[in-house]
């Protein structure tokens, strides 16, 4: 191996990178920015309390009241049905109810925060009652009813995440590649209109996401026994509208970008917060402050919630019309902006 050749190639590779401002920004600037933003977001010092649901009853109010003194627990008093639903939808990590002689805890141990909730509840009850003669350690039930397990929570979220990825990358990356390869310029000098081109492109791509989404759905239903309790039509509408909103975002992000590095960075910048806060892997209802606001404006949050409404609960088009309309509207705004900003060259 000749060192001068290696040196020349290395220098050229370095220069090529260094002279592309977009590549430099997305490699150095963006991670630093993320570090600063996430640092502020997570530096509160106090750990977030773990949400638990307590099944409300006069006896429970007497015996389980000490749980409310535990600062690391966020206790919600719920009806038995609401407690089950809250557990299934990940809004609480564990439920507690008063059994015949002792407390019964219920959780799916595969949920990331379930064990912590269980330990905290058991510790608090032990502190309160271990001195008493009839103290008995709480019983624990594993939540394994279809529709309430972590896998049931996860599958609709994975469909949402797939819509996000396929929609944004499928359109955004390809549009920029076409711009780089002069294909957009070539199309520009034909009588094809911007609206025709973008609408056609979005249509072609968003149609692709429908079978993908239903493949994941069927996989979950057949392999893991994830229930499908709602309307198939509503699910189809959600997938189509979800695909539309994410392809429209991809189109907007790619409307002016001139390099594939830059569009990659830009899409990661938009996707990463949605991956973390969009309610795919854990319920984002428990988030507080700016994180909660951020989660609430993310299309992925609403796609995921509505998909869970039609899969885990008997949701119909009527139940999900509001998120459907909001998502379709958001897609429309992104598409209109993309139309305005779009550059062929």
């Amino acid at each position, binding site marked *: 191996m000749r060192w001068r050749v290696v040196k020349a190639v290395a220098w050229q590779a370095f220069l090529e990178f260094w002279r592309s401002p977009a590549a430099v920004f997305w490699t150095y600037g963006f991670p630093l920015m993320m570090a600063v933003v996430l640092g502020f977001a997570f530096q509160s010092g106090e750990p977030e309390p773990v949400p638990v649901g307590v099944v409300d009853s006069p006896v429970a109010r007497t015996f389980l009241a000490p749980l409310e003194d535990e600062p690391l627990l966020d206790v919600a008093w719920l009806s038995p049905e609401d407690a089950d639903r809250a557990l299934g939808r990940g809004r609480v990590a564990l439920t507690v109810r008063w059994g015949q002689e002792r407390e019964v805890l219920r959780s799916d141990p595969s949920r990331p925060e379930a064990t912590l909730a269980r330990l905290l509840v058991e510790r608090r009850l032990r502190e309160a009652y271990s001195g008493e003669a009839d103290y008995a350690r709480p019983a624990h039930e594993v939540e394994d009813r279809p529709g309430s397990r972590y896998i049931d929570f996860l599958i609709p979220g994975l469909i949402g995440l797939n819509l996000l990825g396929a929609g944004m990358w499928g359109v955004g990356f390809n549009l920029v590649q076409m711009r*780089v390869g002069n*294909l957009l310029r*070539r199309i520009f*000098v034909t*009588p094809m209109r911007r609206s025709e081109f973008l609408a056609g492109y979005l249509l072609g791509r968003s149609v692709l996401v429908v079978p993908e989404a239903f493949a994941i759905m069927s996989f979950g239903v057949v392999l893991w026994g994830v229930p499908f309790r709602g309307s198939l039509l509503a699910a189809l509408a959600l997938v189509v509208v979800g695909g539309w909103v994410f392809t429209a975002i991809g189109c907007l992000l790619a409307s002016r970008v001139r390099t594939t590095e830059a569009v990659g960075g830009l899409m990661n910048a938009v996707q990463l917060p949605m991956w973390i806060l969009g309610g795919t892997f854990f319920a984002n209802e428990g988030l507080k402050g700016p994180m909660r606001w951020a989660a609430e404006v993310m299309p992925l949050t609403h796609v995921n919630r509505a998909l869970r409404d039609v899969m885990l609960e008997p949701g119909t088009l009527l139940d999900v019309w509001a998120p459907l309309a909001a998502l379709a509207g958001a897609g429309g705004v992104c598409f209109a902006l993309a139309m305005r900003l779009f550059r062929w060259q």
Partner: protein
Amino acid sequence: MSEAPAIDLRDLRKTYRKGRETVRAVDGLDLVVERGEVFGLLGPNGAGKTTTVEVCEGLTVPDSGEVRILGRAWRGGEDDAIRARIGVCLQETKFHENANVDEVLRLFRSCFDRGRTVDEALALVSLQEKRGARQKSLSGGQRQRLAVATALLGDPDLLFLDEPTTGLDPQSRRQLWQVVRDYRAQGGTVLLTTHYMDEAQQLCDRVAIVDRGKVIALGSPAELIRSLGAEHFVVADLVDPDAAADDACLLALPDVVAVERRGERVECTVASVHTALPAILAALEQRGVAIDGLATRHATLEDVFVHLTGRHLRAGGEA
């Protein structure tokens, strides 16, 4: 409307900003391309050819000047009408690698309300046998012919070809030339940019030589070459570059119009080879100057450019 020239450019100006520098790409360019002619735009890289073509195609907005394409102006509410009547072949277009020839043509055909069928376009560029072939399996020449086919789909009145044969092998170049000749024979107009002088001489009815954003010469290739005053060159390579073959004595010979020395090479511009050549050889022999190479050649558009600017069209470029 049918009387209007295919292209009419008046006092066209366009500057670009490159960092802190301002580059004057087109600097008061006037040009009229009549209908039915193949018109060549020649010039070195950076002369302003591509900017001029892009202004004509509606891709670039000029700073000032008047642009009329087939009698219509860009951004005057008739853009789609212009685009429906022009065909464009950019210097390089990357179609989708996985798309086959037929699919690419169908996509472009969909843009036009009227025009040729995919089969007709394929026949025009002799690509019928590649109809189902994917982009990645096409040769450079076939890709370029496909690009020309997409430009012909709308049955355009005016065809823009921006360096269409750059990088192609001789056979592919000749195939493309034939496509251009056939198109012209059917009454089409072509604006062609090229830096291949032989291409311009073979194909173009008229050429404009562009330098530093201006047209510096305009006419048919034959007229421009004739404007040199002589159409042939006698080139002699001297054994000893320092030999005393003084230029003045060669220039004094009948029919020798100009003499240029480049190292050991002496190049005489002559009006007629058969009278000038014996005289040159005799003059060299008389002075005892030995030569180890002798050649004659016709003047080309390259010589016209050198004559006008003192520079070569493709300084540092390929031969």
